[in-house]
């Protein structure tokens, strides 16, 4: 995968977030503060713009630029968290003399680093009803696909459906992190907005791959 693929991925996330903006906001209204859709729309919109303004030469630099843009434009909880995820993913791809192509295994490692960044910063574990509940199973699915020697399409589809399942599994959970935790038991019965947006991010890998193929 090259910068073109990753650029398509980010553009696909931005499109999906814009299309689902109202749904994300509604999910956040139920157990948060009704801004998640607007936050990510602003952030990924800015990321697409940043990539267009000054296209990075290498995949690592590209992901770091996306992460930095999210941090500097989103705010809220999701800005630093997703920003860190992309930044750490970019960092894991090496910082000097970067390759212009990354393998599926590289990407899986990068996303694992991103996930580690998120849990380090936010200290949420799976089951806390956060984006981690979609992120973690998606990374595991990717790693499993890599171990099994699967192709990109197959791997991305596995990751996307793991993320989606993870997001859906947040519905009955009682939140222990983020704003939803203030609701205590009342947070149960609603999908976590960050988990829902994380599912969109992994689904966009498939779209980017199809655009490629």
């Amino acid at each position, binding site marked *: 995968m090259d910068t073109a693929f990753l650029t398509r991925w980010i553009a696909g996330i931005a499109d999906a977030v814009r299309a689902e903006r109202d749904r994300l906001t509604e999910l956040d209204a139920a157990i948060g503060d009704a801004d998640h859709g*607007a936050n990510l729309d602003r952030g990924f919109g800015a990321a697409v713009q940043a990539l267009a303004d000054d296209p990075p030469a290498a995949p690592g630099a590209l992901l770091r630029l996306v992460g930095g843009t999210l941090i500097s434009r989103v705010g809220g909880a999701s800005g630093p968290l997703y920003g860190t995820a992309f930044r750490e993913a970019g960092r894991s791809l090496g910082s000097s003399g970067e390759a212009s192509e990354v393998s599926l295994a590289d990407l899986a490692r990068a996303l694992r680093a991103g996930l580690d960044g998120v849990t380090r910063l936010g200290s949420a574990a799976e089951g806390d009803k956060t984006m981690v509940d979609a992120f973690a199973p998606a990374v595991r699915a990717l790693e499993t696909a890599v171990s099994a020697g699967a192709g990109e399409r197959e791997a991305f589809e596995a990751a996307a459906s793991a993320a989606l399942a993870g997001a859906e599994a947040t519905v009955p959970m009682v939140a*222990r*992190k983020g704003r939803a*935790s*203030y609701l205590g038991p*009342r947070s149960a019965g609603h999908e976590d907005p960050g988990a829902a947006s994380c599912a969109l991010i992994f689904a966009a890998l498939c779209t980017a791959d199809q655009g490629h193929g």
Partner: protein
Amino acid sequence: MLATTREREQLRNVKKLINSAETVVTDALRGLSAAHPGLRVDPDGRTVSRSGGPTPGKVGLVSGGGSGHEPLHAGFVGYGMLDAACPGEIFTSPVPGQMVTATAAADGGAGVLYVVKNYTGDVLNFELAADLCAEEGVEIASVLVDDDVAVRDSLHTAGRRGTGATVFVEKIAGAAAEGGASLAEVTRVAEEVNARSRSFGVALSACTTPASGRPTFELGETEIELGIGIHGEPGRSRSTMRDARELAAIALDAVDEDMPLSGDALVMVNGMGATPLIELYVVFAEVAEQLAGRGVRVARSLVGDYVTSLDMRGFSVTVCLLDEDLTRLWDAPVETPALRWGR
């Protein structure tokens, strides 16, 4: 710039005094700037600071958070309180870049204290900003405000929210800083105010964010939410409407259970944004009377809109147990758009 047709449609539906959902924060900052020559406002960069710049040798105080809580925080920038504030989007913590700019505007060489309301977003963004500023050689300390007793504190959760006590922390720490206290001392005072303060809020209606154009939750004609925060989140539980006396008792019980009340208190009855002042005085009458019944003397008070939640109807009660030092710092002169005395 005229609002788009879709935006116009939306703003008509929610009937807000805005130009568009996209520009509301910038437009309000333009208004703040026009109304208060004592402030330096950057509506696009989203920072507000004292027009005189940093006070050399004074500890700087910076706060910030999502917009929609006006007058918090920008309305508390000025002599004796904050040096700078950075308002985020509606209900969205500001980004580290704003905080870095605000820190520069507050840094008089004696270090800068961040007053951070305990929300994951605020905490994370201020942490990132503190790292960046520390790299630049600015000494940064942070105090986390977490006064809301509606949320149970626990190691495994995000902890209690920061609400009304933020005003007390900013005023009292601001007075300490103005008085020449060191960063360590200002931080200690801020932490003490937070430790001695508790809040509880009640909503009679949800609020409507300009972007969504819909109430954040629906309440029936006789329903209220108990234990709400300041972001239009639903509270801990839904209940039926009571009179002011009972609602005051519910709030004070919740506070007292968490922090046994006694002695002299600084008490705020705060409106959530769409509550008429006459109703806040009715609530304050009950709060003061019931506190007296619990042996607490209302030594100082605030009644009005200080930490709001857009157009939510409702109120919150914040109690801070005073000692002599804190009382003196509370009484010290302050000159900001929303809090002013002695100057």
